[in-house]
């Protein structure tokens, strides 16, 4: 039966007919053909088929196929196909290189911050003081701190009796959890009057920053000692007290009471070695908008560490953006070139094949 003969058997028979079997395999096959009539019949059939195929005559060429210089000339269009393919390949490689290099270069650059240790040392007490207070969600019933712009001119930073109001931080005078309160002038504030404002001023002559407290009672100047000089970002001692301790008749001194004051050794985190020059100008509108609110940690805000981030964006950022645009344009150009060259090569080869 034909179905009893495997493909392997037919392969051996075919190789046997061409004398391509080894001696051992030949002997095994011959022995099997003696005892297996189907295998012998398959051998006969395959042999006749091979003879029939070999009976086909070798054909003669209908003409001479010799070549000439003209027939060997390569059509110019055929020369384009390899060049187009090579162009596509080179463009693809360049595109891949630019994309990968752009990925490596586009890591977010870390802005040079102030020494983290100093910033942490300076702002940590502030943050702790704020965070330790129970957080009070701002509701319409809670007076949120706000910057008031009073149209009262500020004439001189000296002690005068002008009821000056300057731009500063207006704090809710009523003791409110979560908000530091002024330590001065609280008792003497009359109902209906605006809360006293406080701003930070440093006279140009003295390196030691001073506090000028403006209240309804006039301008009172407080000067701190150098050791307890708070810097930018550091809460003056007045803000740290939750209960008013200083009396209006006394010269306000930065006397910390309940809340821990910053240690004398802690220095403000200022990258510049020179003390800041923040001066109050004549009118409230001219006072530079100090971000005291953010720096003093009102509510749940986190004080902003001062440092390089306060600076304006340098020109290097603009150059970097321009470079990225250039890289993007290059990537797009290379991608289009690779696709166009590849398609052109394929079209040329297809037309040449026809």
């Amino acid at each position, binding site marked *: 039966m034909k179905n009893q003969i495997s493909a392997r058997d037919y392969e051996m028979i*075919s190789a046997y007919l061409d004398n391509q079997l080894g001696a051992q395999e030949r002997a095994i096959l011959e022995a099997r053909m003696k005892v297996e009539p189907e295998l012998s019949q398959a051998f006969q059939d395959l042999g006749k088929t091979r003879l029939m195929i070999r009976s086909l005559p*070798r054909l003669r060429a209908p003409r001479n196929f010799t070549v000439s210089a003209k027939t060997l000339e390569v059509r110019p269009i055929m020369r384009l196909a390899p060049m187009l393919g090579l162009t596509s390949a080179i463009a693809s490689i360049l595109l891949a290189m630019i994309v990968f290099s752009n990925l490596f270069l586009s890591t977010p650059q870390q802005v040079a911050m102030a020494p983290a240790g100093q910033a942490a040392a300076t702002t940590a007490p502030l943050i702790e003081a704020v965070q330790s207070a129970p957080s009070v969600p701002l509701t319409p019933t809670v007076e949120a701190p706000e910057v008031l712009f009073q149209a009262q001119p500020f004439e001189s930073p000296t002690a005068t009796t002008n009821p000056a109001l300057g731009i500063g931080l207006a704090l809710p005078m009523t003791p409110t959890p979560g908000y530091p309160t002024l330590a001065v002038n609280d008792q003497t504030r009359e109902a209906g009057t605006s809360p006293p404002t406080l701003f930070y001023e440093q006279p140009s002559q003295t390196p030691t920053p001073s506090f000028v407290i403006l209240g309804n009672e006039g301008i009172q100047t407080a000067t701190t000692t150098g050791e307890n000089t708070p810097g930018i970002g550091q809460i003056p001692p007045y803000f740290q007290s939750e209960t008013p301790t200083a009396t209006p008749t006394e010269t306000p001194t930065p006397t910390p009471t309940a809340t821990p004051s910053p240690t004398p050794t802690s220095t403000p985190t200022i990258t510049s070695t020179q003390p800041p020059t923040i001066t109050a100008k004549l009118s409230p509108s001219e006072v530079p908008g100090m971000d005291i609110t953010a720096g003093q940690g009102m509510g749940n805000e986190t004080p902003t560490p001062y440092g390089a981030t306060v600076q304006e964006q340098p020109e290097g950022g603009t150059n970097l953006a321009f470079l990225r645009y250039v890289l993007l344009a290059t990537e797009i150009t290379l991608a289009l070139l690779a696709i166009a060259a590849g398609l052109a090569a394929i079209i040329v080869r297809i037309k040449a094949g026809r």
Partner: protein
Amino acid sequence: MDEIALIQAAQRGDLDSFNHLVLNYQDLVYSQAYRMIGEDDSAADATQNAFISAFHHLRSYRGGSFRAWLLRIVTNACYDELRRRKRRPTVPLEPLDDAGEEVESPRWMVDPAEQPEERLERAELQRAIQHCLDNLPADFRTTVVLVDVQGLDYYEAAQAIGTPIGTIKSRLARARLRMRDCLQGFMELLPAVFRPE
């Protein structure tokens, strides 16, 4: 001039030396092309393309059987032609006889010493065999033509196709098996010696 010298001269760009080689091998190459394609005009085109390609790639010949190297080139040219014909089927221009077969006039196949009856029988046998060859898959057809028609051994056939010898053995056995099954349909056309007992 022996074949090696002709090949070396042709590799240096001598067109006359190459044409000598063409004249020596054009029957072999055309026969291979015709058995693979089954059409004389297409076979002639494939033969011409094969020789042109052979001249351009002569430097890739590193020795060994030049015949196998040439047959490899013409085999690839025939594959290209078969793919092209598959994309665009051609209509035969030759008239058809009553049986629907093309009326061919292969004058180059005529043996003047043959009797007309013998010539007719041989022609019918060859037509049947060619019909069965055309029904084989391309790779089977190439193998059986190289070995059984062209007379190459397994090693040369493996070089011409670019496959291992084991593949040649397997394809050849399966091709012969299919040819046996196909030719049994033309039993009445087969000479008595080829008819099954």
